[in-house]
């Protein structure tokens, strides 16, 4: 099963951009104009590109992930009710532990910044610490945005309900998309300039560095310019799953436990996001070790991946901006 999960994480990264962020609730707001395709209008699915056995593994793993999420949430709900009766009993530990596990599994789905983290680390040199920074920051902000919205609307404005948070989330999503596009454009500009000017990889902040000329994480720290803005832009979108759990805690009058659970949930989300970032970093470093042995890829063309990554992030941001409810 671990193999299945790793496979799904990887596939979600590769296929992820088709789902830049989580959709808005179909149970709220105006009717969507988009109708589901009729059976004879079947649209192409990325899984169709995979060999049947891998596709079957992915489908089986996805079924497990969905079921686990439902079971964890149900069990956590039971513990939350026990906390209501006995605030400092053993149920609290279980509740927080389940929040962490839920975060890990919940983030296996699309959204939560894995696509951006993966693209970033696949296309530029970076340190391992950068992966932790980006993954941790994105996850923390993703949950924090939900916490702030729920507290703001419920606590301050007394405007309870999914609608208020959903509407605010839509606006934040558009702002986030705009910022992501800007960060992407910045990446394109930097990589494009290095490509055109023929900047030496060893002297370029977006290229290779280190005396050995390898992309190794220790020898090539890279430049983290843009990392924080991208993390901020992606994390700006509130996590509906976190909002639901916090709101549930509020209705049980255990806000403090709900807020604690948010920390554990964010840590769980971060585990998955950081894992994807590290996987991308490892992949890039392995490729770089091979390619850096030739004179050609020591040239300006090493900036091509960074350019492609910047273009991709810009494109995702634009699509998300134009159609935030995709």
């Amino acid at each position: 099963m671990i193999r299945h999960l790793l496979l799904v994480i990887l596939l979600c990264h590769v296929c992820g951009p088709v789902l830049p962020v989580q959709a808005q609730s179909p149970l709220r707001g105006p009717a969507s104009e988009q109708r589901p395709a009729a059976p004879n209008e079947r649209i192409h699915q990325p899984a169709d590109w995979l060999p049947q056995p891998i596709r079957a593994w992915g489908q089986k793993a996805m079924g497990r992930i969905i079921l686990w999420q439902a079971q964890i949430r149900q069990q956590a709900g039971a513990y939350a009710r026990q906390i209501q009766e006995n605030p400092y009993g053993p149920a609290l530990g279980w509740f927080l532990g389940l929040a962490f596990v839920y975060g890990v599994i919940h983030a296996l789905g699309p959204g939560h910044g894995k696509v951006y983290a993966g693209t970033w680390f696949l296309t530029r040199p970076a340190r391992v610490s950068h992966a932790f920074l980006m993954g941790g920051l994105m996850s923390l902000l993703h949950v924090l945005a939900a916490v702030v919205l729920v507290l703001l609307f419920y606590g301050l404005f007394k405007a309870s309900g999914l609608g208020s948070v959903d509407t605010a989330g839509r606006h934040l999503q558009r702002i986030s998309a705009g910022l992501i596009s800007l960060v992407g454009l910045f990446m394109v500009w930097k990589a494009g300039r290095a490509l055109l000017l023929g900047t030496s990889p060893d002297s370029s902040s977006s290229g290779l560095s280190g005396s050995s000329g390898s992309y190794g994480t220790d020898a090539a720290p890279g430049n983290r310019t843009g990392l924080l803005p991208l993390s901020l832009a992606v994390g700006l979108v509130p996590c509906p799953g976190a909002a639901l759990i916090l709101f549930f805690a509020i209705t049980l009058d255990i806000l403090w436990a709900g807020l604690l659970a948010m920390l554990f949930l964010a840590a769980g989300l971060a585990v998955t996001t950081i894992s994807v970032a590290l996987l991308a970093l490892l992949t890039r470093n392995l490729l770089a070790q091979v390619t850096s042995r030739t004179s050609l890829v020591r040239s300006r063309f090493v900036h091509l991946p960074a350019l492609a990554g910047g273009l991709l992030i810009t494109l995702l941001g634009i699509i998300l901006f134009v159609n935030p409810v995709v």
Partner: protein
Amino acid sequence: MPIRPTLTLFTAACLLMLLPAILLTSPAQAHPHVFIATAIEVDLDDDGIAGFWHYWSFDEYFSAWILEEFDVDRNGVLSSQEQQAIYTNTFEGLKQEGYFTRVLKGAENIPVQQIENFTVEVQDGSVVYSFFMPLAIRIGSETEDIFIAVYDESFYCHVFFPPDEIGRRGNVAGWKIDYAPQDLPELAYYFGFVIPTAIRLSISPA
């Protein structure tokens, strides 16, 4: 020429990064935030299947949210006005999604266009939507296969369907029905990794 395999690798890496962009034409979906348990009854008349009665039981997290927002008088019972507000704000928009329901007669798609008798109850802390989906499916003298699947392609909700049992009402004596779950891989969603399971009703005159 050591440079050739290296160049190939390098090109492959670039293409790998561009692959997601190529896939961007697919519609976006999201992981489930809301879980829905279901029950269903087939309503039979003299001509065949009059429609289906659906019962959707939401998880307690979403239920808490619904109750907090729409149980205005906080009495744990939803009045007709409160139910109407729930319908308008959380359900009416699903018409464009066919109320998450796909019905097939053999290979023919039967459009789901309306529902009737929408009511909301609270059962053990869970909000339960009940409604009738009129379809008027005429059944001839031969055995016909009807498929019904309930799922959210946007993946915001995960619908647990089909239930273990399917209920019957109306002209039950007039028809012989066998049913079994059946996967419909041609309707796969969420990158093609989630396959809806339908109920296959094999129905013929008794």
